[in-house]
């Protein structure tokens, strides 16, 4: 792997998550998570379902206030900043549970993003950016005139990526971007990620496709029960006994290929678990189950 560290030349890392704690009622979803994502690199955030990955994303993007800890973005503390201000500073994200604008066409989804990015001027007259080129770049031109609620899941994830790119972000937070893509599409997607990183953008990605994660990430952080249990290059992560324990439930010397293969298994588990989680609930199982217990005793009596 080439060394992409410090491409931007800044001293501070692009994104620093500093001892972040998130508690829902009595349950700790994220526990003292500390990690960085550098500009010009692809960073993976992996872990079993319910480990707190999406909650981490929500904290970073501002949708969830952390109980404790700090988030620094481009050298500035943004922990208390509202969602839109972080975006203005160059943060873009996609969602595990899709948030495409269903009533708009795919092209209009991206156009809206561009208009919002341009601020007040964007609300008055249309921008000049070549929207179709963006659609071409992520490979969804064929769907440009479809309503966004009628396209396949994988395509909608790519649409969310295109929508982010319309705002030219410095940091991309991608929440399971490859689920719903077939093998060829996933390969193309990996190449796109490398391209985006080569432009100097930082990419932080939650992903269950281990082949993709191991193939494109420069650094990987592993979350389990809300804590970072390992950080390092893909090779190191593969060999880490703690990671193997977290993924497979036992620690004794698992051959490397089995962990890689386990990615598929984990994805399958993820699918079933996701089905259990109802529409409208937060996407991490940990955020759902405690919420029931959390609200009951004090709130309704």
């Amino acid at each position, binding site marked *: 792997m080439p060394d992409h560290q410090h491409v931007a030349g800044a001293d501070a890392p692009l994104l620093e998550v500093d001892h972040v704690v998130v508690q829902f009622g009595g349950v700790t979803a994220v526990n003292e998570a500390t990690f960085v994502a550098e500009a010009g690199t692809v960073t993976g955030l992996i872990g079993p379902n319910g480990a707190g990955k999406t909650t981490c994303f*929500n904290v970073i*993007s*501002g*949708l*969830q*206030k952390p109980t404790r800890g700090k988030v620094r973005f481009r050298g500035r503390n943004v922990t208390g900043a*509202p*969602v*839109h*201000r972080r*975006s*203005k500073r160059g*943060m*873009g*994200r996609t*969602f595990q*549970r899709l*948030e*495409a*604008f*269903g*009533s*708009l*066409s795919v092209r*209009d*989804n991206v*156009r*809206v*993003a561009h*208009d*919002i*990015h341009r601020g007040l001027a*964007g*609300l*008055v*007259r*249309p921008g000049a950016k070549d929207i179709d080129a963006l659609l071409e770049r992520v490979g969804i031109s064929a769907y440009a*005139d479809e*309503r*966004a*609620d009628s396209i396949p899941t994988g395509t909608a994830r790519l649409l*969310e990526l295109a*929508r*982010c790119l319309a*705002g030219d972000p410095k940091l991309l937070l991608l929440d399971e971007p490859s689920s719903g893509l077939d093998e060829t599409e996933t390969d193309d997607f990996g190449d796109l990620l490398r391209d985006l990183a080569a432009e100097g953008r930082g990419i932080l990605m939650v992903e269950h496709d281990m082949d993709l994660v191991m193939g494109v990430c420069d650094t990987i952080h592993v979350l389990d029960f809300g804590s970072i249990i390992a950080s390092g290059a893909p090779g190191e992560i593969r060999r880490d006994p703690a990671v193997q324990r977290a993924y497979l439930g036992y620690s004794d010397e698992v051959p490397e290929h089995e962990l890689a293969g386990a990615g598929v298994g984990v994805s399958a588990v993820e699918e079933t678990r996701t089905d259990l989680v*109802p*529409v*409208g*609930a*937060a*996407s991490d199982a940990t955020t*759902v189950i405690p*919420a*029931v217990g959390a*609200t*009951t005793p*004090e*709130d*309704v*009596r």
Partner: protein
Amino acid sequence: MSSLISFTILGLFTGAAYAIAASGLVLTYTTTRVFNIAHGAFGMVMAFVFWDFSQRQGLNLFLSLFLVLGVIAPAIGWGIQRFVTKGLGEGPVSVALVVTVGLFVGLIGLAQQVWPPEPRTVPPFMASSGVQLGDTYVTAHQIITIVISIGVALALYVLLNRTRIGTAMRASVDNPELLRLFGGKPDTVAALSWAIGISLAALGGILLSSVIGLSYYDLTLLVINAYAAAMLGRLKSLPLTFVGAMGLGILQSFAVAYLPSDGFLAGTRAVVPALFLFVVIVAMPQAQLRIGQVKGIVSAPLPSITKSVGWGGALLVLVALLVGGGMSTANLLLVGTAATYAMVMLSLVLLTGYGGHVSLAQLTFAGVGALAYAKLEQPNLAGLFLAAAIAAGVGALVALPVLRLTGLYLALSTLAFGVLMDKMIFQAEFAFGFNGTLQAGRLSVLGNAIESTGGYVLVMTLFLVLMGIALLLLRRGPLGRVLIAMRDSPAACGTLGLDMRWFRVGLFGLSAGMAGLAGALFAGLRGTIGAADFQFFNSLPLLLLAVVFGVTSVTGATLGGVGLMLLPVMQSNNPGIAGLIFAILGFGAVALGRDPNGLANLMFGLGRRLQAVVLPQLRDKLPVLPGSRGSDDGEDADLADLLPTPLDTPQPPDSTGKVPAHA
């Protein structure tokens, strides 16, 4: 000192009744996520049923109570949950609000129809008994009410904490689907909580009816007090709800006792609950953006600009023909009124149809515009637009305190605002005055006063058409796209960099400004206006008619305006069924509320089918004119334009074959 005690006891009594009703509201909201605006209306109807049993039919008091609280109210609650509000909690807040507003209006209409206005009294329980507490006489009814409220609190505590079904109720608060997975029955839980909720509303209504009388509106609007109390508990906590209810009861009682009974402050006595509600909402913590809720909405199709201009012109010609055809002044005034309502509904198209927010006091904003126009005494374009700008500013001010909140709370703050304006501002000396009116001059354009009613109505129609076209232009542009995007996914808009708080304030302001412009024009039309022209309550049928006719299209608003104008006409022509008309409107909105595209969209569908099916057949039957083959296409196009397709008819599907809903 003795007055302090007696007013405290009076306050505790009303507070206890509020607490009973409010706990029912909290129960239904927490378990089903449907905020029942009609909660008080159910209490009102049940109080009438109780009167009917115990007074008119002379049934035994306890039997009547049992029938109402133990049989009828729970059955209605169960039925409403099963057949009306089921599944509403998961949809957009605006739909649930419209449906329960429909119930609200429908129940008032029903009560008026079944029990026509006549003096009725419900005697208090154990009317002749009471206790002498020092200088203060406490009636048995007051003691019974306070005791019952304590009993309700205890019963709810035991139900929720000590029984299996209660545990299931608490579990379904957060996650009905998860409850289902663990073997619970969310539907049973929801139905049960609605049965209990409506029963509690009935109990609250019955206890209060002997004090404030059997009145359709007073009992119904009492629910605002329950809202306020429930809001203190953030619609979740029953103990805080009880605290809120008692505090509000005492506050209200003290306001009556110690605030001056004349002057400006006298008005505040009537609006203590609304003020309380407003303050509690403003103090609510920041709402977090919810994710994972996205649903695209199939909206009424957008017409091309040429077509809009064409239909707008047709409307103008129609009105001109009516004016030129020697229509009576009375009828011309009705046409002008319809245009006013249509413009107010256009402001709802922007706010609700495009933006997904609900205002329960849109007519009040029209009143602000009318008041400003009359007070400015500048009957010209400058005065008109200044009046609209003032209304816009007031609208932005209403949205400002609830900047951080969304949906339900924004709607409730408009409700509190409507009540405040009704009871305090509009009646004040500096406004219309108590039961007073103001004079307003007819508009003059560039120095030419439009004195004739016909000419004025034509100008109003012109404003309506221009407003409609402007709205469609806005919808087609970047701003319209952002509005739709925000309705579909606020969370995504936030992460794309949109500061939705100010955007929402701007949207609210713009919408209020449109309503204000309509109100100002209406003031000029009528010449004399008063607070009665803009009563808060009338905003609710306005909202309902807008939704029934289609709040996503300009056509829907135009038709809705005509409908709202006809409503009182129909009622005065058929006084026997005045209530029934309201009931039909309300329950019709309940049936149609789930589709905001309304009747207008059905008409568009019909128009499209006409073009697709009837037109080719018609063409086949037409004899081919010799030598006219070449001009055939042109003729067809003309024919298509002549067909009765309404304003918002879409362009024929474009070459890609997509429905141009997002054009």
